[in-house]
């Protein structure tokens, strides 16, 4: 059972290119979409998976923002740093995967209380963003921020704390239903002595329980690393990771068959995420009609996506505030489960905040500088149908409804210059269709 290659690849259109760039990154402006279309599907996938060199300006600015975060010990400064990376990095897929792992291994600074440890964890996610999930899971099991987050120092030989063992199975590798309470108790004993000392992972052999444990039916004097390996070898693990990949890249509610298809690919690629995504992005599953506009944009996708598609220069400080309002406060996920996402991204309050953000963005007042709207307006020309088609190609995953199209046409005909473009973008960015990615 393998992922079928997408039959439509030969008729690769700008809309397809926009779909790929939206899912495999945070969106793109009109020029990037044109470039991707021109390059073709295979070349665009390779570019997304390759380690593209960053500009010197990016490297310098990113370093300055990180320095500020470390110096101030203010998590909001670290948020600004990451948002800058998401907006400006030449490797958007890496940032998207980093975000996926941040949600998968949800850790909050509210408890960790260390910008440096949160940053180190983020770098770990980035390092293995497209790499081997085995190495990532082993890395996370030794990560200081994670160990603090899951109270490992309380896990002692005579009083095992189950937090870490439970989350490794339930949230990081297998999912509910694929282990027993007994497995957790035994795994917790295996992790005893995995402590943090002076800000680093420390194996306290005096507090480790070296006796035999039985986990998933296997018996041995397992330690923490052995438990991680047992989890990775468990048949549920690729399905669990495949589910996360599908929710990020294909649709909010993947079917069993879809999960099995991607899990099989992941197994075949020996848990290498980059190689798995190469197959996924070229597949019928990714480009098929059921995948189009099948994801509700997360606040990050919504905010960074709008910035990218409008080629705006963001005020990252303001954006961190907006993202918290919209329900995706980076480095501070609500629980160990991270953000549930999907339909839960949308509520009456969050829709209102999304609308307010969109208005603030296109007036250029609050969230960053926009390119000259009158120039965009002039480039789009007077033909409202053509203008809508062009704007939809960049900004929308699915066409506007009939009413909105009518409103767009009326507005385009009656206005001009900045106001024409601003009104049109307002209509698009606040439409229900724009909430879909």
């Amino acid at each position, binding site marked *: 059972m393998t992922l079928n290659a997408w039959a439509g690849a030969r008729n690769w259109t700008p809309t397809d290119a926009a779909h790929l760039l939206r899912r495999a990154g945070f969106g793109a402006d009109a020029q990037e979409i044109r470039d991707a279309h021109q390059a073709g599907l295979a070349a665009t996938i390779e570019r997304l998976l390759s380690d593209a060199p960053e500009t010197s*300006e990016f490297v*310098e*600015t990113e370093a*300055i*923002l990180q*320095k*500020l975060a*470390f*110096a*101030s*010990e203010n998590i909001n*400064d670290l948020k*600004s740093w990451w948002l*800058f990376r998401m907006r400006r990095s030449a490797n958007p897929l890496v940032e998207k995967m980093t975000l996926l792992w941040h949600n998968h291994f949800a850790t909050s600074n509210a408890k*960790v*209380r*260390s*910008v*440096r*440890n949160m940053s180190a964890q983020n770098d770990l996610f980035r390092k293995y963003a497209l790499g081997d999930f085995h190495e990532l899971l082993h890395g996370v099991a030794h990560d200081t921020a994670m160990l603090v987050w899951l109270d490992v120092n309380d896990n002692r030989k005579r009083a095992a704390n189950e937090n870490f063992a439970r989350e490794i199975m339930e949230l990081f590798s297998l999912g509910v239903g694929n282990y027993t309470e007994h497995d957790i108790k035994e795994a917790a004993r295996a992790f005893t002595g995995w402590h943090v000392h002076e800000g680093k992972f420390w194996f306290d052999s005096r507090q480790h329980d070296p006796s035999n444990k039985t986990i998933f039916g296997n018996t041995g004097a397992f330690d923490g690393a052995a438990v991680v390996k047992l989890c990775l070898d468990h048949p549920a693990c690729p399905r669990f990771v495949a589910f996360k990949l599908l929710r990020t890249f294909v649709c909010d509610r993947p079917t069993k068959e879809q999960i099995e298809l991607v899990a099989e690919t992941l197994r075949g690629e020996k848990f290498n995420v980059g190689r798995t995504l190469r197959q996924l992005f070229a597949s019928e599953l990714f480009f098929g009609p059921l995948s189009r506009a099948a994801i509700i944009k997360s606040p990050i996708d919504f905010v960074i996506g709008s910035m990218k598609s409008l080629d705006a*220069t*963001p*005020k*990252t*400080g303001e954006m961190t505030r907006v993202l918290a309002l919209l329900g995706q406060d980076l480095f501070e996920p609500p629980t160990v489960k991270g953000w549930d996402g999907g339909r839960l991204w949308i509520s009456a309050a969050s829709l209102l905040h999304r609308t307010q953000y969109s208005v603030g963005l296109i007036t250029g007042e609050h*969230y*960053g*500088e926009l390119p000259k709207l009158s120039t965009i307006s002039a480039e789009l020309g007077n033909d409202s149908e053509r203008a809508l088609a062009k704007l939809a190609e960049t900004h929308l995953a699915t066409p506007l409804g009939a009413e909105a199209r009518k409103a767009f046409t009326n507005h385009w005909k009656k206005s001009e210059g900045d106001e024409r473009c601003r009104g049109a973008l307002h209509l698009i960015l606040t439409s229900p269709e724009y909430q879909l990615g």
Partner: protein
Amino acid sequence: MYTFLSLLALVAAPPSNGDASLAARFPAGAIAYAEVVSLKPLADQVPVADWKKVVEGTKQYKDFRNSPQYQQFLAGKQILAAVLGYDFETLVQRMLSVKTAVAVYPREGQPIPGFLVVVRYPDRELWSKLRTQVEAWTALAAAGKTERETIAGRQVVGLDKKFYYFTEADLFVASNDKKILETASPIIAGKAGAKLSEESSFKSGVAGTKGNIARFYLDSEKARAFAKRDRWAPAKVDNFLGSLLLQDILELGSTSKTLVGGIDVEGKTLKLVVSIPGNPNRLGETYKGFLLDPKLAGSTPAPRVKGYLGGIVVHRDVRELYHQREKLIIESVQPEFDKFESGINNLVPGKNFVEDLLPMLGKQLTILAARQDFNDRPGKPAIRLPAFALVAELSQPKEGSDFLQMLFQAIVPIMNFQLKENGGQPQLLAMDKHNGVDMTFARPLMQTAGDKLPIVHNFQFCSATVGERYILATSRSLCESLIDAYRVPSLPKSAGRNVVFDWNPTEIAESLYENIDLLVANGVKDGKPAAQAKEEATFFIEALKTISGAELATQVRPEDFQIRLEWTWK
């Protein structure tokens, strides 16, 4: 267009024949009066070349040079040169000695007061050219809206019944009220009439501003009557700090008969003095704590320790002010004082803030900041904050020092709880001696090396008592510097100066340079490209370096209360 005409008229006029003030050209009864006698002394001293260099280095200036607006500016300069026969720079030079005055008069039944502007052009050649332009502009831009009539023998031009002016060989006179112009006309001509310059309050008020390059005068009583207000500021303020620093100024300014100000240049120092005439001690018992009796006023300047960035000295009787708080501060804030007192009492069991601490306090508080070199520690933080210090004078040094020391020792464990919550290192209390003076200081449990340490490594709280002064500093080295500064047996006092705020731009600029990456990072967060943020930060720092100092102080004198600002450049 009225603004344009006024501006055009202002575009030229040095003084004529030793007549220093234009107040003699104004009728009596003004609410307010302001005049610029000559800007030349200021222009002669300002380092224009330095400023030009700083501005020319900025991206904004370079962008402006390449913009169409710059071309328009150049064209404008050429037109001006062609019309007047001078280039722009010459014109600016000749304008520097223009004498300009404006007065505001109440108008019965009108919500907006009337104004009278007199501009005197000693440079008659320049004025005759400008005068032609004023008239040509009036004819061109206000065609159909002008009326000409004769008032007191002068041809007055009225524009849209809103603005009236006339010109003479060396004068431009304008008003928004025909009646004011009518009253002023004979006085301007040197004929008899009640003149502003002869009003006794004006005469005595501005006497101290003689020779200043600019001055202003406010008849506060008339102004309050016109505005239908008993006082300018409310009698009670809403916070203790505001009261401590400013309430004497607010009360004096709010209830005084007049207010006078002058601007002068002395060498490379610009001085602005605002004076509230009359003995400030008139405010009475409630304001006793502000030490407005000229015999009691006066403070010791903040010591210029190594790396001094700035400081504020407050000379007050805090105990007295605390007792008068119900008369000085609004009712809704009063419960906050109770909470504060309870908080302090809880920290120091068995002692009472009002009964035990307040009587021990002396009359001067000094807060200052100084750059740190971090040489006393193995590591340096990435954000290099200045060290701060609070120096409190004690009337009972032994008891006061013990009380404050107890507070210090109680606060450190609380601080350790906070630090633990935030992943910081706990602080240990330690003791040492510096030049024979005992110091208590908090040092981190582990000394960390590196030059990008977290912000918390800026702080190493330290306290000491020297003579009758208690020092609390955020760095041990600043504490030591202050111990050295205050070991001098009797420091000189500046008579009459109750509040003094001063800053040292050179050291501030150095401090900002040390943290320039962080200024840039904040610019990036605010949506600027890194290069632009860096240029803006550099421009600000370079501009700062052209200033050598600034000081704002209050001065209590038997004849008045002054607020003095001095600004010195390099």
